[in-house]
């Protein structure tokens, strides 16, 4: 947004906008990895974020690992690896209770 007529825009990737302080950022990264870890295994992928180095680590079942900078890059990589986009409106994600509930 224009700096004179709008409100300040959060810097960085839009998905990182919800946390500013160090502890909040770390909590957000752990939680994000937790959600990814509930979604990706159905597609033969897994996610890890230890909070020490920047980025999200995506692993394939064959042991391949890639670190991507943000969530948008996660979905681009996942589509490349699996051959189709991961669709949140897929029937597997429409169950009533959710993963781990």
């Amino acid at each position, binding site marked *: *947004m224009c700096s004179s007529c709008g409100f300040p825009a959060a810097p960085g990737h839009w998905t990182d906008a919800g946390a500013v302080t160090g502890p909040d950022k770390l909590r957000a*990264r752990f939680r994000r990895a937790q959600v990814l*870890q509930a979604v990706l295994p159905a597609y033969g992928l897994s996610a890890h974020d230890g909070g020490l180095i920047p980025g999200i680590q995506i692993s394939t079942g064959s042991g391949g690992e890639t670190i991507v900078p943000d969530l948008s890059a996660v979905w681009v990589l996942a*589509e490349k690896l699996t051959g189709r986009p991961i669709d*949140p409106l897929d029937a597997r*994600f429409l169950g009533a209770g959710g993963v781990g509930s």
Partner: protein
Amino acid sequence: MRASWAPAAWARDVTGTRDGRMQLTVLGGFLGSGKTTWLRHQLHDGNFQDAFVVVNEAAATPVDDALLTRSTDLAVLAGGCACCEARGELVALLRRICDERSGKDSRGQRLQRIVLETSGLADPGPIVEAIRTDPILVHHILVSEIVVTVDALHALAQLRSEPLGRRQIEIADRLIVTKLDEADPAALARLLATLHCLNPGASFSGAIKGSDAELPLYDNAEPEALADLSDEVANPPIFATALAIDPTVDWPAFSVWLSALLHARGDDVVRVKGVMRTPAGRLLLQSVRKVVQSPEVLPAQSADTAYQDESIVFIGRGYRAEDLRRSLRYFASAGRT
């Protein structure tokens, strides 16, 4: 060829019409084309001063009014398009504005201008017709200009498939091509040539984040050969869904879900907007297809805007509203015991 830019009618004359009628500017444009951003900047610059601003939103939960705080007089018509189901409400609102104006004795106190920002799903044509044919409004209001914003990033795709996008452009007196800084130069030139073919009579100008910006030359660009859409099977209608965001939906889970949704369904989920509470404050979230704008950090809420933080509006087609709710619930509860 260079698109002409001329000072708009409102910049030359802010005193209403000679016969005493109010001037009405209709501001239209497709979903996410930058109507509110442009209007917000105009208000910041002091244009449309003393105008009564009417904002029409297709969704029941309005968002844009929170961004137009520079306007002293503002009314919101939410929950329907002013060109169809909410047309009666628009006429009733304009009549009330006219009634109030007629009660003022001094010409100096009288309202001279109304700006109507339509929803992105509105065809300005029926709105203008409703005002011009209403037996009361016709004596009080003159539709002085139809301004339509055009998204430099997405307009060509919209013009290929959306008859509404074409109608909005064809009826404009002035086309404002927005997001110039984000568009590929060749695609932008092609878009400008296409707009010129669709509406050779309109004046063109450009905008970046609401500010005036110069349009490039497009002499050598070929216009898009747009197919006739009249014989095609109509696309399913675009609809709005307000998704409740309760306290169990945390930002990290929501951002995982929305980023995946827009990657997979960005051509169907045409527009997302709303306010989300996060540890970093209230974030104004806006997307157009797959492009998400950097969220603005809004000031702490006042009591009258508290309702806006309770839902995010999704506008699109090709999915079921209930599936959005169920899927978000699934992601938000992931990993929770």
